[in-house]
């Protein structure tokens, strides 16, 4: 086996070596190139594949979102009931009025004549957009015309605003049942005891009940950016 290769080999010498060593070196070069490419892409982590604005390049922490209440405090009634009444008490926070001065309604409405006419509201309550079956529905389907401090069920029973779920349940029976059993809506407190429910109106504006879209919190860091994200924070 003659593998001697002289640095100054002439043309004929090179040609003699062609079938053996030069194809081998060609293979070697190709192999090296491939492994370098692979290594490179591993080291780079394929970061080029992700668009710059695709998200997941920065690590956020809960502290970056002061508007979100992560330390949720229980209602005082729930906390008190948890220690005194293990069987469970259900608390519902007060109904959400658009501003504090708006209730009781009778402060204004007691002296006013009831206007049964369907119309566009002006002067007062013009912020209300009725988007809850507007063709079939009007104020007095739910609000009691004679004493505005109450709501009125279809059968004529008057209920307070803190019992509005009964009114909603007239049509949304299955949801009402799920809510009562704790399957619909947010509950807080003790899974084996006292807890708080929300009224339908705490999440769904009764005049426009579809749940409003919200801004999502940012995505997790993509694996290839984990180190970059960590270094950025340490630089700061």
């Amino acid at each position, binding site marked *: 086996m003659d593998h001697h290769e002289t640095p100054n080999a002439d043309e004929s010498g090179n040609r003699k070596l062609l079938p053996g060593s030069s194809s081998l070196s060609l293979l070697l070069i190709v192999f090296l190139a491939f492994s370098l490419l692979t290594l490179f892409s591993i080291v780079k982590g394929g970061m080029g594949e992700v668009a710059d604005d695709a998200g997941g390049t920065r*690590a956020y922490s809960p502290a970056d979102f002061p508007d979100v209440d992560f330390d949720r405090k229980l209602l005082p009634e729930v906390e008190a009931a948890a220690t005194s009444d293990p069987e469970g008490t259900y608390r519902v926070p007060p109904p959400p009025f658009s501003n504090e001065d708006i209730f009781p309604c009778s402060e204004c409405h007691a002296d006013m004549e009831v206007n049964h006419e369907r119309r566009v509201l002006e002067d007062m309550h013009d912020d209300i957009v009725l988007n809850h079956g507007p063709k079939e529905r009007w104020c007095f389907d739910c609000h009691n015309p004679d004493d505005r401090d109450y709501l009125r069920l279809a059968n004529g029973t008057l209920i307070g605003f803190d019992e509005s779920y009964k009114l909603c349940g007239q049509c949304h029976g299955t949801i009402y049942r799920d809510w009562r059993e704790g399957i619909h809506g947010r509950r807080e*407190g003790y*899974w084996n005891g006292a807890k708080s429910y929300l009224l339908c109106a705490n999440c769904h504006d009764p005049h426009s009940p579809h749940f409003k879209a919200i801004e999502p919190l940012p995505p997790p860091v993509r694996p290839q950016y984990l180190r970059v994200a960590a270094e950025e924070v340490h630089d700061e």
Partner: protein
Amino acid sequence: MSEFDHERPVDRRSLLIGTGLTAMAAISATVAGASNQFIERLLRERFSELGPERKQQILDDLEREYSERYGRSVEVADTPPMDGVEFGYGLDLSRCVGCRRCVYACVHENNQSRNPQIHWIRVLRMEKEQGIELAESNAYYEPAEVPEPDAFYLPVACQQCRNPPCVKVCPVKATWQDADGIVVIDSDWCIGCRCCMSACPYGARHFNWTDPGIPAAEINPNTHYLGNRPRPKGVVEKCTFCIHRTRKGRYPACVEICPVGARKFGNLLDESSEMRYLLREKRVFVLKEELNTRPRFYYFYAT
């Protein structure tokens, strides 16, 4: 092989002696340099087999260590499972809007590392047209507002399997299923081999590549030995259904933060619980049912 070997042959005997001496030197150096607590923890029995006094001693030590490190009083409990309780979890896919409040509430509650980032919950965005297609899902969605009209969202965390593959593969039994169904990790016993991570079909286990980066002001001082106490570097961690809360009767943090109330939690053994109502009245499914992991985490569509 090389000329070097022929010049200075190393026989088996001297190699073994040399290796042994080096190892002993390394060990004694470590022992001399480490704190007493560290050695004690290294040599002690597994936590679950200790007597109550020794357990309390370890908890006190941990409390002292964490309080010192974070400059505030940190409590480490080891609340046992309640009798007659097996936890179950429900998630209403028809309600979830993919807002990721749960992801960050979980980080906040369970002292996950902020940077490098660890998230126990991962919210997958899926196309309504395709249905549940894990391979096509996207966890990095970032629209201005959610929900997007053509998408739905599937949050995934530990499924607390009844037949957990992660527990089976652990070579040191550092992870197991407690009586209330929570799959827990003793991070003092974990050797960081990450077999459980590769065994978990849900990607629910996460590794601490470094000491967790948590600013002292953000630490949650209410912790559990098997749950959210600050983890050391080089161990695996995962969702424990908020073991420090749920074993005291509270809902998990993700249940309470969810703005649409999509997350449900309760006792599977109590016929009047929310979970039992859910299983009776709704059509539920579990992720990757074909793997026979038998999760305690049920997804459902309420409408």
